């Protein structure tokens, strides 16, 4: 029972954004992908969720069921949700409506409504604003809403792309607490983070991606070398601008 990614390749025209990426994520496990800008981390997450703009070749399965080639709306129904980079809140929809969209994938409508309410208990900042437009939220609130919207679909696996991007340090700490609590719920989490050191502390397993490839992987207690490599890589590649 796990999320299995085997030999994932993403190409945009002649550019190979990800090459032979393979890893697994078990329920309740946090797998962190770190690496400099342009290493292909977001490409990998989008490809798994079925939202890649490029050409994807891979064998992805979730608890034994294949996901490869499926549409994003079907993948979320199989229990895998993506919280994308930039959060992508529906700014003209209310907070509540954003969560309703998250529940569209659910077959059990009544339980889904109860789950929306439970999100307001989990994220009290959202409860106070439930009828405000999504576009009026602060960065931290928007990130909470993006996570809540994904959680309402009742995922077994969650892909988080840069959840701390653009947030104040105190809010980032809160965000990591939330991620820990999701892990405690038994959700398998694949986390892409700029905040590499903090993310590695959280992780059961860390992958270092460089120019589209997984260059190193480490478990939580052998991360020292990886961190050293990570910083070396950012020194070499950090000058490249993000596309």
């Amino acid at each position, binding site marked *: 029972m796990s999320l299995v990614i085997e030999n994932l390749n993403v190409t945009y025209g002649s550019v190979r954004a990800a090459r032979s990426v393979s890893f697994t994520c078990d329920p309740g496990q946090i797998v962190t992908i770190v690496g400099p800008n342009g290493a292909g981390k977001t490409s990998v997450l989008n490809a798994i969720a079925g939202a890649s703009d490029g050409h994807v070749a891979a064998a992805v399965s979730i608890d034994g069921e294949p996901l490869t080639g499926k*549409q994003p*709306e079907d993948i979320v129904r199989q229990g895998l949700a993506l919280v994308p980079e930039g959060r*992508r809140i529906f*700014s003209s*929809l209310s907070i509540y*409506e954003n969560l309703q*969209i998250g529940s569209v994938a659910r077959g059990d409508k009544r339980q889904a409504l109860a789950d929306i309410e439970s999100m307001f208990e989990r994220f009290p900042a959202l409860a106070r604003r439930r009828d405000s437009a999504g576009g009026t939220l602060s960065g931290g609130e928007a990130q909470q809403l993006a996570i809540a919207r994904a959680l309402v679909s009742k995922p077994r696996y969650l892909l988080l792309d840069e959840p701390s991007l653009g947030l104040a340090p105190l809010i980032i700490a809160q965000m990591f607490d939330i991620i820990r609590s999701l892990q405690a719920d038994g959700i398998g989490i694949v986390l892409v983070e700029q905040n590499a050191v903090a993310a590695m502390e959280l992780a059961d397993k860390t992958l270092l991606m460089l120019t589209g490839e997984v260059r190193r992987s480490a478990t939580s207690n052998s991360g020292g070398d990886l961190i050293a490599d990570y910083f070396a890589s950012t020194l070499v590649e950090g000058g490249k601008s993000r596309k």
Partner: protein
Amino acid sequence: MIYILQSLVDAISLGCLYALFALSIAMIFGVARIVNFANGDLMTVGGYSLLLAGALGSIPTLVVGLALVVALALMMERLAFRPIIKAPMPTLMVMSLGVSLLLQNLMLVFFGSRPQGVSFAQFLAEPIVIASVRISALNIITIIMLGILGGGLLYTLKRTSVGIQLRAAAEDFQMARLAGVKANRVVAASFVISAIMAASAGMILALQVGTASYNLGGRAVILGFISTVLGGLGSIGGAALGGFMIGFATVVAQIVLPTEISAFRDAFVFTAVILVLLFRPQGLFVAFGRNLRA
């Protein structure tokens, strides 16, 4: 005073008709980013459907006509657009032109090039006289129609699950899919709503001129686009308001301009539209921060 009241009703009613054109165009564009020229032909089919009135009677004709146009729109979506929905926007637009020409020529084959007289509910042609103000019944019906359809649309978009999905898809189509919204289903829903608007608009058009012809909706579809752009691409309410303004301004121009040049009223109205777009290319009522799907 009486003249002003009559003209006001004329202006509001033409505004409502243009708002229907605009809603029909904006609904599909907003969700699927398809510039659908074939919408004009949906209006034409709506107009022709009134020919059934002799055989079926009034109310059944309206129901059958509406069903016919909706079915045609769904077929269009399924057979012409769904297979190429990921194609670039110009490709989708050319496809819609192709579908439009095909439908026009099919109607030429069936009905010929001569306009067919529609005789439907004769009372609509008679004016209603209230305190010596003579108002065309059709104008009143047009205003009521926009009220009902606009209210229904608003309710659907705000209160129903499919409506909320339509709004989410209009804002960020891919994110909506990632959250579980079924792409084919929302696009089809936008075609159904658009078809209801088009069928109603087509029937009103045919009743206004008293005939249905194969190019009945040709001008309407252009007006719909202009209204949508004027209101702001991606804003459904903006499109309706844009249409209303153009229709209203057309009647006002007709009245205000000296008789010698009032025949050229459209030139004045669209000069104003061009000026507005030069200063507000994003449209008048576009919501802040809305971005178009690439």
